[in-house]
């Protein structure tokens, strides 16, 4: 069965080609069918593969040799194991739902752009599958860059708007910064081990010095920072909301941004052997989680709030990875995929209904107009806030518990972030769905529930958000209930063998669990109460509020510290160094020749007397040079003796 794994990326690729080439000739419905159908097909194959892996374990399928030179062979190979197959399911499953949703959401587009959209989406899925399936770091990198490209294309999908294009470019460039780190890590691996294939790398890991491992993991983590929007490379993700909302759901919530987590989980053995990097990962993750959460509190754009929430959640995942809770991180990826996709799609549904109004201050009371969207959105909010028994609770709890075991400070800070999460999510929820409508009359007139192609994915995802956490019920509740951990155990086996175990006592765990849940509930109630009766106020925020509204001025900081100096240096090079120093030197030689020419011409005075004079002088000089040993010396001797 695993032999068929190549079909999984092949379907979306075909979809991309058909939709891309036929975008002008195919009808919209056909495009939609092809676009979603290919993903569905992949999903089905993925399911088959999933069961195959469950039954038969890991397998590697080599298609052909991508690069084969003396001392370095990089096969174009797919590795199907527990980890990749999980991601396959998320990508194709959630991907399919979002494709389906898109057929309705994007229906207003012209056919050719509609086709283009689906082509990009399919290409994205293809790249993401490549990323996940690759059996070595190079193939992963292919997918890694591929998703970056698709992200670029999709963020800038409405290319007439230059702001969107800037956002797209920003995303690509920031991703590239990370990619450079990734690449350097791969070079380092190849340099030291002569291979980039996972199995070889992980089995030869003992040959690497601790410095090598630390450096490689740190570089890989830089790659992850870019892709998964961690400090300091996170600023692209909120801007990426310029893309169509389903894109945000798929790429910037459910799949692409989790590539960094996938990569680190994949390389878990390396990280386990590099405790330094691991703490770095944990700290960066934690910092991002809190930092993004603070920003989210003050955002008024529905998608921006979700975007910062995503950044924050990704931070949690990295925290999990950093404290060695690989399973927890992957678990959170899964649940996050469900509820965050749901949130985005719900937001999309709202935006759709509001005719592309995204400011939550101008919404309100949508509960009665859009019941399905409302319910599903609420479920998702509960999930992300971490209310049991919704999925988010389990995954977040697993990470936090692991953090607690590692270092209580991690836990408390993480909990603070979680509280903020609950706060801003319910702020968002109340502003959007509760209270009275604050938009224009015309908007109110048009408010309606979305079509079924949009609501069905919402419902499916809502179900998943609710029950998705049950694959990872902690041991606390039931012995051996954590089926995900058992499923993934082979992947993390070598890491768990090395890692030192911290186990909390059961009673302690219960205490933390109940305490934190209680706090979250309090925060939720506070948030709903504060914003239920929200009326637009004109007064400016003050103090911290301004800073948060302006996202801690990070973009401005980057502009001031990196972008502007770089531009200035480039301008200096272009306008000064190139023109006056380098070209100036070349032209200077030319000018020197010209100057010499004009001066030497004067020697040719036209006067015979001068000519003869120079000749005679030259003769004298020649004689003196030739007889330097006798003439001059002779006269000097005569002079002084």
């Amino acid at each position, binding site marked *: 069965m695993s032999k068929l794994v190549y079909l999984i990326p092949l379907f979306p690729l075909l979809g991309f080609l058909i939709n891309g080439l036929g975008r002008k000739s195919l009808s919209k419905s056909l495009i939609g069918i092809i676009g979603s159908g290919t993903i569905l097909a992949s999903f089905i194959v993925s399911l088959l593969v999933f069961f195959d892996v469950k039954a038969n374990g890991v397998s590697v399928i080599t298609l052909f040799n991508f690069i084969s030179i003396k001392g370095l062979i990089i096969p174009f190979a797919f590795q199907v194991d527990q980890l990749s197959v999980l991601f396959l399911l998320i990508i194709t499953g959630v991907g399919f739902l979002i494709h389906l949703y898109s057929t309705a959401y994007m229906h207003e587009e012209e056919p050719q752009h509609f086709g283009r959209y689906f082509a990009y989406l399919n290409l994205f899925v293809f790249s993401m599958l490549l990323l996940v399936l690759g059996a070595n770091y190079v193939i992963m990198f292919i997918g890694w860059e591929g998703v970056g490209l698709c992200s670029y294309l999709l963020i800038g999908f409405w290319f007439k708007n230059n702001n969107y294009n800037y956002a797209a470019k920003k995303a690509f460039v920031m991703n590239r910064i990370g990619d450079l780190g990734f690449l350097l890590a791969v070079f380092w691996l190849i340099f030291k081990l002569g291979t980039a294939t996972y199995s070889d790398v992980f089995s030869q890991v003992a040959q690497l010095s601790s410095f090598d491992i630390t450096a490689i993991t740190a570089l890989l983590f830089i790659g992850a920072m870019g892709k998964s929007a961690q400090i300091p490379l996170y600023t692209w993700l909120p801007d990426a909301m310029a893309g169509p909302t389903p894109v945000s759901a798929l790429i910037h919530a459910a799949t692409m941004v989790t590539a960094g987590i996938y990569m680190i989980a994949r390389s878990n053995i390396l990280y386990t052997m590099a405790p330094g990097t691991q703490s770095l990962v944990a700290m960066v993750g934690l910092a991002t989680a809190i930092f993004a959460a603070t920003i989210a509190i003050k955002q008024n754009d529905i998608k921006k709030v979700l975007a910062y929430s995503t950044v924050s959640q990704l931070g949690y995942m990295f925290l999990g990875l950093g404290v060695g809770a690989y399973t927890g991180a992957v678990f959170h990826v899964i649940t996050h995929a469900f509820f965050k996709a749901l949130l985005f799609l719900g937001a999309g549904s709202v935006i759709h209904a509001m005719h592309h109004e995204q400011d939550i201050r101008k919404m309100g009371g949508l509960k009665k107009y859009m019941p399905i969207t409302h319910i599903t959105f609420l479920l998702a909010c509960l999930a992300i806030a971490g209310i049991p028994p919704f999925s988010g609770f389990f995954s977040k709890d697993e990470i936090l518990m692991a953090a607690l075991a590692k270092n209580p400070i991690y836990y408390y800070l993480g909990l603070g972030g979680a509280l903020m999460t609950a706060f801003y999510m319910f702020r968002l929820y109340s502003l959007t769905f509760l209270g009275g409508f604050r938009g224009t009359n015309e908007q109110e007139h048009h408010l309606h529930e979305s079509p079924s192609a949009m609501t069905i994915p919402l419902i499916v995802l809502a179900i998943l958000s609710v029950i998705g956490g049950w694959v990872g019920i902690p041991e606390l509740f039931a012995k051996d209930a954590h089926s995900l951990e058992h499923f993934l155990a082979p992947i993390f086996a070598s890491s768990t063998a090395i890692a030192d175990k911290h186990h909390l006592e059961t009673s302690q765990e219960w205490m933390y669990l109940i305490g934190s849940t209680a706090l979250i509930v309090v925060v939720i109630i506070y948030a709903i109460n504060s914003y239920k009766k929200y009326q637009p106020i004109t007064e400016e925020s003050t103090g911290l509020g301004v800073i948060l509204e302006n996202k801690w001025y990070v973009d401005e900081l980057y502009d001031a510290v990196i972008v502007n100096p770089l531009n200035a240096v480039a301008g200096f090079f272009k306008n000064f160094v190139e023109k006056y120093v380098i070209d100036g030197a070349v032209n200077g030689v030319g000018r020197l020749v010209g100057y010499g020419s004009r001066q*030497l011409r004067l020697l040719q005075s036209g006067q015979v007397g001068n000519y003869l004079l120079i000749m005679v002088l030259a003769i004298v000089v020649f004689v003196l040079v030739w007889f330097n040993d006798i003439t001059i010396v002779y006269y000097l001797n005569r002079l002084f003796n």
Partner: protein
Amino acid sequence: MNAIIVSALLGVVMMFSGILLKNKSTLKYIAIGGLLLLLIANLFQTYGVYTVVVNSHELLRFQKFGLFFNTIAITATLIYVILSGKDIENAGNYPAEYFALIFFVLCGVSILCGFNSLLMLFLGIEILSIPLYILTGSDKRNLKSNEASLKYFLMGAFTAGIMLMGIALIYGATGSFGISSPSIISTPTGGTSVPRASYLEIAGVLLLFVAMCFKVSAAPFHFWTPDVYDGAPSVFTSFMATIVKVAGFFAFIRLLEGQSAILGPTWKILLSFVIIATLLIGNITAVFQQSVKRMLAYSSIAQAGFMLFALYSASDIAKEGILLYAAAYSLATIGIFAVLIKMKDYTLDGFNGLAKTEPVLALTTTICLLSLSGIPLTAGFFAKYYMLASVVKTGTGLWLVIVAVLFAAVSVYYYFRVIQAMYFKEGVAETTEITAGFKAGLVFVAALIVLIGVLPSVLLNYFYF
């Protein structure tokens, strides 16, 4: 010897044909016939057939090398007359005399190709020079021509004085006028006895060297060149700048060949100074010339700088190279001058747009210019190649070669200005009437240049069989 006699006789024939013939256009054909005769006579001697056997008591000694050289000079003259014969006829009022003088010059060239005594060198150079003074001033109404003639004469005579002093000093030291019998005397210096030539002789050789530098217009004795080349009627400039000049070079090499024993290490320093000065002045000054004719004068100085490499290395490959250089340089320069003479305006702007009005002229001129700048696939490349290769082979003076190639790059600048004017600039280049035969001649020259450039062995093999 054949060539000396035949060319002297032909000079007389030309003089009389001027009296006998009323139609001056036939002169050209007589001259061409005469040159062919001369060529054949010289070839005869090259391969051992003598018309008259004259015992010159070792004053003259003809070797293959010299005779080959003479062949090149005569052939170049032949091409020159074919291309520019009509212009010689129109240069002044005495066409027959001009042709006669050209033959007398060739007589001088032939002497220089075989001299074995400083006396013959002196006579040869004088026979070469005196007709040139006259040819330079042949445009009698033109003040520039007059001035050039007088300048040339005065400086030439002055140099003849220098040269004679050199010869006298050599004679004083060696007691003979032979060119290959340096006197090596032992002078006790600082207790040890090292053989070295007498100071007098060295001084004499030095003065001779200076005089020869003057003849080949090597800096800093080049000053006459731009003025004279510029002032002389173009058609005679062409002759002077090519055949006469390379003959001077040949004499130079032949002269110093025999003196190599007395030329100590200082010699190379001095020579490299001269080479660099020549390259510098020739190339740099040419850059800003507005008149193509004057530019070519400086270019001929620059080319002399390259030819001096043959002296520097003083090897067989250099001798071979100087033959090639002579051929390549003469061909190209004759070609360019032939076109230049047809132009109404000698400035660079006068060439503007020539490619549109006269594509054949433009193309052939371009090939000639490419050859002068030493671009591969033209004869000029191999000429320069041999010069550089000979120096590189000696193992010393690599820096000199590098300097030389840098100047060669400068030379591209002014040669290509002409190409740019012809091809890339707008304008209407005015020419006098161009005949089909003239074009054919030019194409032949260009073809020859390319042929030598692709297969120099065509020419070089000739020297060996």
